[in-house]
């Protein structure tokens, strides 16, 4: 009986097409805000923080409402959160272990513009020799 009750519940998301339209418009608007911010004059640090927060908000909305996780059994949430947290931990651990200052790779030099391929290649060979 409990199983039947759950089956009823899982197929009974309270959201309908109208709500889904509102959610989609909201997600599209957040995407537009992200796009506008990426063209703004904000410095890299605050910009990255704001973009990550907005992206996380979109992520949560899609998982909770489009994937119905909010209305489903808690075991699904636990399974997914386990993978998500472990994946996030791997991401942070790898970055903490291997992150380098990009300028280190070139010994503090700037890469030449794209049209100067030969110059770029020479810089690459010089750097190889240094290594």
């Amino acid at each position, binding site marked *: 009986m409990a*199983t039947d009750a759950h089956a009823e519940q899982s197929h009974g998301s309270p959201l309908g097409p109208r709500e889904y339209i509102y959610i989609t418009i909201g997600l599209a608007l957040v*995407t537009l805000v992200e796009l506008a911010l990426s063209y703004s004059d904000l410095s890299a640090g605050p910009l990255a923080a704001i973009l990550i927060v907005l992206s996380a908000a979109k992520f949560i909305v899609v998982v909770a409402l489009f994937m119905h996780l909010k209305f489903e059994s808690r075991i699904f949430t636990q399974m*997914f959160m386990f993978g998500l947290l472990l994946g996030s931990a791997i991401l942070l651990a790898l970055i903490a272990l291997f992150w380098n200052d990009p300028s280190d790779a070139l010994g503090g030099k700037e890469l030449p513009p794209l049209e100067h391929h030969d110059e770029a290649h020479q810089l690459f060979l010089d750097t190889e020799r240094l290594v």
Partner: protein
Amino acid sequence: MAAAEAAHGEHHASAGVDNRMLLMWIFLASECLFFGSLISTYLIFKGESLVRPLPEDVFDIPLTSASTFVLLMSSFTMVLAVYGAQHARPQMMKAALLATIIGGLVFLGFQVFEFKTFADEGLTLSTNQFGASFFVLTGFHGTHVGVGVLYLSSILFGSMRRNGLGKDGGTHVEIVGLYWHFVDIVWIVIFTVVYLIP
């Protein structure tokens, strides 16, 4: 009870949830580890390139924004397909599934165009660290979209049979919907981390 469930072809685990749904959620959890590793690899490698092109040389943000919008719309049509399947509206389900498939194909078209443009500008898998990590990350995501399109197509063709998807049709569509929305949320992260954050 067990015999009755078997007779009706039920797929419920002792936890009281549908086995197939549980399996898909576990699969998606494992995919989080996969994409987490790829995204961190991209972040580590993108600033390590010793030759151009670099991201600022090749990225076309308006174009990628358009493909992001298409994928977002396909998530909307997917959720309508699930709604149609669960509320006995087969025509709505089929139309929404078809729209989702088209959205996925358009997204793949954008990606092929982007890859071709990058290759023309000198960025390939072996050009530099940025190229290697970028193509692997977005390529694997594109592969997931391709698999999703095939999965959606199989469900759509299944629904066109005389018996349709059977009495579990709603669950079948909901499971493919989970996969499709996951592909969408992975792109939400990739779009922000790869394209928008400087």
